[in-house]
């Protein structure tokens, strides 16, 4: 018998603390598999955010640290500048990266920090009970927008990849999704590129991944993945927003 698929050794044995069907687990696997395939697990440092993935350093089988809310890119920049031989990545939700941490992510890209950013956009604050995020869709019901987000009140959802791509020292920006296996495979390719760019000293790379929060959205896991496709994707188009790194 030949093993076709098994749990990656890039993950620890700790059981994931995520809800059933949460996309965080899928993206964790893709990052872990990538670190193993690129043979960088032993020299990688993860920077976990505040949010449901606050304990991510318990799950990735590499070194890790946890940053104050939104500050992961600043912490990662410090680690990378003092440990240039290490591979450093941040793993951040949209409440973390696109709300309280908007300044940090923009300035990290502006400085051209040679780090990899894994950005999980599930259009909600999962950990704290499903509140509206800057990325919540117009009309989307959350615990703080019970009648649906209104543009006149909260503006339009923040398009992070579109905002980051014009920053001169951002090298690679792509938006992907993990709602089915074809898109999971594409997301893995994007994550791999974002790490290869760092290995080859190309600079700041970010992959924005459209993700499901079935608990915060109050839907079943299967319907959560449907909502990524039918709800999120029309507003958040998938694709490469910038690629100045070239081939690796």
């Amino acid at each position, binding site marked *: *018998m*030949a*093993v*076709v*698929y*098994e*749990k*990656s050794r890039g*993950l620890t044995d700790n*059981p*994931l603390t*995520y*809800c*059933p*069907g*949460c*996309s*965080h*687990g*899928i993206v*964790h*696997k893709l990052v872990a598999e990538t670190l193993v395939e690129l043979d960088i697990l032993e020299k990688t440092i993860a920077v976990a955010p505040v949010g449901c993935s606050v304990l991510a350093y318990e799950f990735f089988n590499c070194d890790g640290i946890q940053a104050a809310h939104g500050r992961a890119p600043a912490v990662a920049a410090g680690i990378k500048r003092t440990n240039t031989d290490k591979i450093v990545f941040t793993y951040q939700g949209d409440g973390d990266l696109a709300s309280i941490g908007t300044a940090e992510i923009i300035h990290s890209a502006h400085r051209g920090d040679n780090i990899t950013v894994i950005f999980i956009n599930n259009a909600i604050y999962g950990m704290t009970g499903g509140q509206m995020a800057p990325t919540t869709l117009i009309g989307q019901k959350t615990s703080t927008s019970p009648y649906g987000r209104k543009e006149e009140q909260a503006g339009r959802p923040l398009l992070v990849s579109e905002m980051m791509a014009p920053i001169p020292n951002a090298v690679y920006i792509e938006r992907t999704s993990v709602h*089915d*296996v074809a898109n*999971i*495979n594409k997301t893995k390719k994007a994550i791999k590129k974002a790490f290869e760019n760092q290995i080859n000293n190309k600079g700041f790379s970010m992959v924005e991944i459209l993700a499901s929060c*079935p608990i915060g959205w109050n839907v*079943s*896991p*299967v319907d959560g*993945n449907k909502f990524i496709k039918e709800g999120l994707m029309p507003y958040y188009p998938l694709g490469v927003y910038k690629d100045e790194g070239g081939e690796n």
Partner: protein
Amino acid sequence: MANLVTITESMCKGCALCADACPKNILEMAKDRVNNKGYHPATCINMAACTACAICAKMCPDSAIRVERDA
């Protein structure tokens, strides 16, 4: 010998993403039991039909599925 799907029931959260993704529709949540976490775990109801495509395993957020191909 057929291909083999092994589900570590203690890791499963019964989310059913694997069953929804399986092109052969051979995965179900076992309604006759719950695991240590209190979920109905996924189970394969027709191993002989498995093509070892591993779509279920790639979909599983909790890495609970191992797939082996009959060489």
